[in-house]
């Protein structure tokens, strides 16, 4: 099976890498300077950053199983936090990467795990020519 570091996998790893860096930076600043203001959303930001780091690492080291888990957890996260932030916006005065289903980031946090899951699952359980699909 083609490595996760080629084709679309490489693009995904790049996007996840950017999000990992940006989410880590943002949540570090939040946790270090404003922890008392809104601890739960900032911890969620930190969790999101961690998941992005794991996803990036897994895609770069061809660990499709771990990548699949990370991306699935991420999707659950963005859907759950997105829904909660719409239902109870007062809990999220300062946006986290997953609030509003990632609307602060052009909904990329929502689309990214969906694309990732589809790609990883097709790769895993693909048809007769799975590798040809991403060349």
């Amino acid at each position, binding site marked *: 099976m083609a490595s996760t570091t*080629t*084709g*679309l*996998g*490489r*693009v995904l*790893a*790049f*996007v996840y*890498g*950017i999000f990992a860096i*940006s989410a880590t*930076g943002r949540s570090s*600043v939040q946790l270090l300077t404003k922890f008392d203001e809104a601890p739960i959303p900032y911890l969620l930001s930190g969790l999101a950053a961690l998941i992005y780091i794991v996803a990036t690492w897994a895609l770069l080291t061809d660990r499709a199983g771990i990548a699949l888990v990370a991306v699935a957890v991420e999707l659950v996260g963005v859907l759950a936090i997105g829904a909660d932030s719409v239902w109870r916006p007062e809990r999220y005065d300062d946006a986290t990467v997953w609030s509003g289903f990632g609307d602060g980031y*052009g909904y990329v946090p929502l689309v990214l795990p969906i694309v990732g899951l589809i790609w990883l699952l097709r790769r895993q359980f693909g048809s007769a020519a799975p590798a040809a699909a*991403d*060349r």
Partner: protein
Amino acid sequence: MGLTWLMGLLLIATVAASAWLLWLILRDVSPGPGTEKALLWIEVGLVVNLVAGVIRPFVQDAEGVSMPTWIGYLVTTAVLIPLGYIWSVKERNRGGTGVLLVAVVTIPVLLVRLGQIWTLRG
């Protein structure tokens, strides 16, 4: 106005470059020396923009602008293309061009945000 003329120019250039890279991907053609030169010039512009952006709070009123955010976004615009290059150098196919596209297409978004950060002071 939040956007300087240089930022406006870079916005147009990066949107055009994104459209071009998308076209290359659809045609399954690798970026040639002309494309690479264009990206290099865009990168030069972004570095100049970064320096100008660092100087800006000293020559214009920047009250209420979050400096870490302002500088953070500026630095990001200037490192995306080099990072994209490093990531794509081993992948002389659509995947590699895709990485460059992601890097380049993110830049206009960041430039617009920079303009907003400056004007809205938020």
